[in-house]
């Protein structure tokens, strides 16, 4: 951050904001600033993701920390004139909570940001991710310097162990212990891997870290390499993340240029290089042994463990693999000490966790919260509650491998053990909020269809078992469910969990098993009564027009794509059920609430 400027305009260039044309905004800002002769006083800085993606493009004006959202190119002349020239922040571009209607000027006052605690994301929105100097100015590479010059590998491992850091990829294995296994494993060559093959639907934690603070990950890897004794590291990155790829490659070049990667790092005699491999779109590559297979140039299929990668990983050498967020925590722990880190969180879950908060919630985006925070706080305080004042029904954590948590359990603390206890998992950080209009059978079917589609097909329980379960769920949502199906689903789900070869299969039944556990009545309604309580499953619902409410405005008939609504103007309309495709357009266009669903 350059301090000689009167004002710094931090424009978010995360993927969300870029796709909402934040790059055009930067151009427009620079044009206006130039035109108004402010180039000497005001600076525009592209930053990484702020997390409040639903409200992008976002501009934060420092030093006052004025937060602008949903900015478009057309707003720029006004913004420059009002705020930059006249010193009057533009109210119409500020965040306005749905419940108060009063614009909130600064970032820290916005509920979405207030309850967050930033460690991994601490540089988000503040630095230019493509400029190593800005990372260093914020204390970057201090951890690496300390680890390389003041600590032995054993001490680094001890520090990580003492911090209580656990793997953020989902399983929550203690990171320090994992490093220790790899350090102690026999092998001439050792490797470390950063898993950035983020594949859960609706999850974008890793992408955001890579885009907004790539050096943090590199620094974590340098420290880990030193601790483990690796000379080379891989970053396995989804090819669907072009911006993250561009930034991490730039970061590697800069770090190499600065002597923070490559030979003789910081003059300590320690050599470490990093290469980036692009994943080709297989979800199963998020599983560590598949990822390693893919790196080796093989078909990405999981391998049985043991042997664990720590003993026999990449090309048979000891290999340590952690995900982006785990690596991102490392520099902070080393720089600030294990004691500081372990002071955050709960007894068994330390530090913070990044979640992508999506679904039926007012404030969707990326949030970092201390472990142990209650789900309710995330959804209502940070997330701003459910849109349209609807009721919360459930929260899905851990993506397709996780489980559905019913609203009744909203006060459980978010930590590894509590989530596991109720049948879900922490996962890598996907958090999907569902309201009362969500059918839990359909949700289970949807998630299973995802894992079914991504199953590599190597082991029979995952390949065939999930297919059978999916077929049964599909039948239930179509009204063809049988009384014994619930028991069959539970039996098969348990079998698949116990016998599948890798994590993908082991966790695939979770959404089904947890929805049966917490929403059994919905399954029963589908099977016994042939009804979908949430009125989602098309085969089980009928649209009718209320004789009392219909005014005969003809709007529904005009909009019906199947042309099955008939009725004279000003007379009651009727839907011909034989041709109705249950698209719901009639209901959405009716201004008299006359279309009813049963």
């Amino acid at each position, binding site marked *: 951050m350059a301090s000689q400027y009167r004002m710094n305009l931090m424009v978010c260039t995360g993927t969300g904001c870029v796709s909402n044309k934040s790059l055009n905004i930067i151009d427009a800002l620079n044009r206006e600033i130039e035109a108004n002769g402010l180039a000497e006083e005001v600076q525009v800085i592209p930053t990484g993701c702020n997390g409040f993606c639903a409200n992008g493009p976002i501009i934060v004006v420092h030093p006052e920390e004025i937060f602008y959202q949903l900015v478009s190119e057309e707003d720029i002349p006004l913004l420059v004139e009002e705020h930059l020239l006249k010193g009057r922040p533009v109210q119409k571009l500020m965040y306005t909570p749905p419940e108060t209607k009063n614009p909130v000027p600064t970032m820290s006052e916005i509920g979405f940001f207030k309850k967050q605690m930033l460690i991994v994301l601490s540089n988000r929105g503040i630095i230019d991710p493509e400029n190593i100097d800005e990372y260093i100015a914020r204390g970057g590479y201090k951890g690496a310097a300390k680890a390389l010059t003041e600590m032995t590998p054993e001490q680094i491992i001890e520090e990580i162990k003492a911090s209580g850091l656990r793997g953020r990829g989902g399983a929550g294995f203690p990171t320090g212990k994992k490093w220790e296994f790899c350090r102690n494993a026999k092998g001439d060559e050792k490797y470390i891997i950063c898993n950035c093959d983020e594949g859960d639907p609706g999850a974008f934690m890793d992408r955001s870290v890579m885009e907004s603070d790539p050096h943090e990950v590199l620094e974590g890897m340098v420290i880990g390499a030193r601790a483990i004794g690796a000379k080379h590291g891989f970053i396995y990155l989804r090819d669907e993340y072009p911006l993250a790829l561009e930034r991490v490659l730039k970061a590697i070049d800069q770090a190499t240029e600065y002597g923070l990667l490559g030979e003789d790092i910081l003059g300590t005699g320690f050599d470490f290089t990093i290469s980036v491999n692009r994943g080709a779109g297989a979800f199963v590559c998020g599983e560590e042994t598949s990822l390693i297979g893919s790196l080796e140039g093989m078909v990405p299929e999981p391998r049985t463990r043991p042997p664990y990668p720590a003993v026999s990983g990449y090309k048979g050498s000891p290999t340590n693999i952690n995900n982006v967020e785990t690596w991102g925590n490392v520099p902070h722990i080393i720089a600030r000490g294990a004691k500081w880190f372990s002071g955050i969180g709960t007894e068994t879950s330390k530090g913070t966790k990044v979640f992508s908060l999506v679904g039926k919630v007012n404030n969707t985006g990326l949030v970092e919260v201390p472990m142990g925070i209650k789900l309710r706080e995330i959804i209502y305080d940070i997330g701003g509650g459910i849109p349209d004042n609807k009721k919360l029904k459930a929260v899905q954590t851990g993506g397709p491998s996780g489980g559905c948590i019913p609203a009744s359990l909203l006060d459980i603390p978010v930590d590894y053990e509590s989530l596991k206890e109720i049948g879900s998992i922490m996962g890598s950080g996907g958090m999907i909020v569902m309201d009362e209009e969500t059918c839990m059978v359909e949700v289970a079917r949807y998630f299973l269809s995802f894992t079914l589609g991504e199953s590599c097909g190597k082991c029979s329980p995952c390949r065939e078992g999930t297919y059978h379960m999916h077929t049964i769920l599909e039948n239930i949502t179509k009204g063809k469910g049988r009384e014994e199906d619930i028991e069959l689903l539970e039996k098969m789900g348990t079998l698949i969990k116990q*016998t599948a070869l890798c994590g993908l299969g082991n966790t695939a039944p979770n959404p089904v098993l947890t929805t049966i556990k917490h929403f059994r009545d919905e399954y029963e309604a589908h099977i016994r009564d042939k009804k979908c309580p949430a009125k989602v499953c098309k085969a089980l619902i009928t649209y009718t027009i209320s004789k009392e409410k219909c005014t005969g405005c003809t709007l529904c008939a005009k909009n019906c794509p199947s042309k099955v609504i008939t009725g004279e103007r000003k007379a009651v309309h009727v839907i011909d059920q034989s041709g109705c495709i249950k698209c719901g357009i009639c209901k959405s266009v009716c201004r008299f609430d006359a279309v009813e669903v049963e």
Partner: protein
Amino acid sequence: MTKISLTIDGRKISASPGMTILQAALENGIMIPNLCNDPRLVPTGSCRMCIVEIDKQPGFHTSCTRIAEDGMIINTHTDEIKAMRKTLLEFIFREHVTTCPTCDSDGNCKLQDYGYEYGVDVNKFTQIPVPSFPDNYTRNDHAIHYDPGHCIRCQRCVRICAEVQCAEALTMENRSNSVVVSTGLGKPLRESTCEYCGQCISTCPTGAIYEKNSRGKGKIKDVVKTRTTCPYCGVGCQMELNVHKETNKIMRVTTNVDLLPNYGNLCVKGRFGIEFVHSPKRLSSPLVRENGSFREITWDQALKLVSEKFLALKKQYGPDALAGLSSAKTTNEDNYIMQKFIRAVFGTNNIDHCARLCHASTVTGLSMAFGSGAMTNSINEVRRAPVIFVIGSNTTECHPVLGILIRQAVAAGTSKLIVADPRRIPLTHVANLHLQQRPGTDVALVNGMMNVILSEKLEDEDYIRERCENFEAFRAEVEKCPPKTAAQITGVPEKDIIAAARLIGKAAATYTIYSMGITQHTTGTDNVLSLANLAMLTGNVGKECTGVNPLRGQNNVQGACDMGALPNVFPGYQSAYDSEMVKKFSSAWKVPLSDKKGLTLVEMMNAAYDGSIHGLYLMGENPLLSDPDINHVKEALSRLDFFVSQDIFLTETAELAHVVLPATSFAEKSGTFTNTERRVQLVNRAIEPLPGTREDWKIICQVASHMGYPMNYGNAAEIMDEIAQLAPIYGGISHERITETGLQWPCPTPGHPGTLFLHKDGFKRGKGKFHAIPFIPPDEEPSNEYPLVLTTGRLLFHWHTGTMTRKCSVLDTLVPNAQLEMHPDDAGGFGIAQEEIVKATSRRGVITVPVCITDKVKKGEVFLTFHFKESPVNVLTNPALDKTAKIPELKVCAVRIEKIPEKNA
């Protein structure tokens, strides 16, 4: 190694460290169900059937992937596990359409067995539609067929193709429940890297991949499996002929994964090349030539005719006017009887066989250097050799099952591979170094390498001092050939010669493999001696994973030599010109024997041409395609007064015979073959002799008896007993001893375990002898008139003169004709198009052949195989001989390639 002990299902068992739980259990007779397991493959645990519980370890573990640990307590058949297996099977039966009644594998299918054992409800998931697979990679393939409806996605085929065959033709396509076996990009199998070894067939547990021609010909209950030895190359693969009980026909070939030397692997010829046995072209009656055509006669007439004619010729011209050619395709017993017959009944040493054309120079060269002319080490040692040096051997095509061991060793990172070959043979794709020498310059290449080894002091001084002699004379010669000179002669870059020398010089052990590329030269013996020099220089003889290893071409060329089907030696390499030995055999065979020098094969042909040989008894050979300068051979054979050909087919050669005697094929006889690693292995009769045919040794015995020398043996085992008495290297070998596993000679006594590698404690001849070998160019070099160098060889899909393979529909369809390989620059220069039929001319003759334009050959060189009678390359080749071994220079001659003018132009 100390054993570990563990408890499985309450039984305490012991196991070797490193074994998986499944291996330990199976070895102790505890059955754990498994479908994706094959001992040849790295376990993957994909079928999940072998799950077990391990005490104090939560969950279930696949026993095929878990290493057994000392003290483990394991349960394999709890109620919970059994219930899980049942459901897993029900999943699998959704993929595997249960059509057992129409499946060849019915009765030989683990899935079927488990389905029964676990009481599977195959109709449990009726709501799921039966999948249909309209098309797959075997569409229109005439050899291998894949049925996704029977496939259980265990990936064994994909894994064996990659891990064992290293062909990587197969892969899994799609994901999830639509996953199927396919080739890269779903190409037809023929267009993939498939080598048609059928390893996929051999490992498929459910009959989803099968030989197309065998489909519907019989189930397991209908067949009798007879284990025997493959009749093609010298590797000596063990195979099982599956014969239909009622039709007496071989339906398919299977293998046993536990058996040496191939451990269940076969090549395309072993798998698909047995059809010739039932060819309608098989001879079924003795024939006599009358007025230019053949007439069937009875066996009695034939035996009488043959014996009378030979007796008359012997009487008229003396014993040395008669000669015999034995066969490397027939058994040891056949060969023993043949040479005994020639020596004892004809009374001459004019006995030879086709080894003259392949490894005569090996026998002379290695005998001069080491004292024994056989492969020093064993086949399976190659897998552990730090460096493998392959020179003049297209191993993956000519000895495919040994070739895959080389590829495996390189793929596993165990071995570095150096290939020296004028062509870019398949092995060069995985080699660390390819030295592409000009044909016939091997001595210069090896001398150049040895020059580097000496100048960089990489030689094994102690070994040379203690075990070898004549080193200084050798050193003086090698010093004349620095790598720069070698590079000029061979065309191999100097740096590559140096790199190869360093690899070998610095390696703990180098396993040298060579074949016809070394031996079939006028300098064949020199070439072999050079390799012997290199091995001794680097201390690579007499140890494991080292050696000079000539790969024998024919299934029993080693045995035919061992049996003394050579003019100069009796069985067991005992000199036929040594009076003591002559005495020994005279007394054993109760007849005075000649000690006069006999003629070698090419010399016999010349003698027939000259009129000094009048009668010839030929068994199982086809010199009219295999010998150099065919026109000359044809004329020579035509001039014979009496010529008998004993064969299973009316070969090109047999057509010139006066009498043709129909013999049995390997499938109809018992006896032994000795493979390239000196392993004597059983050949077992799988089918009854075809009508009208007789076993080779029986026919000869009957001729002998008619000629007044009774030869009576009850069976082949009795013949082997006689061999054991007379040939010390076979002294301990009997059919009974080799019922399970073959024995490697020397095996002097019945208690001797056989010999894995030779010259362990000293060379057979005492000290290993270095020879000073100067480079001599090939007999014929390119000229203005004949500007190209022709070299010859074999293809994976065919065998020698095609007598057998071209009668196998799969093989003959895969490769139906010869192709002259020619470099694009040469083809461009002559204006020749791909597949154009051209005229190839040498100083000896002319043939026509289609051209394959490829950069597998270097500019200025062309390559052709000798399998195809339509383009008989040996019309062109040079009969010039190696002066010591009398082997002709089949590998180099000068030719001219011309376009054929259009007729109506």
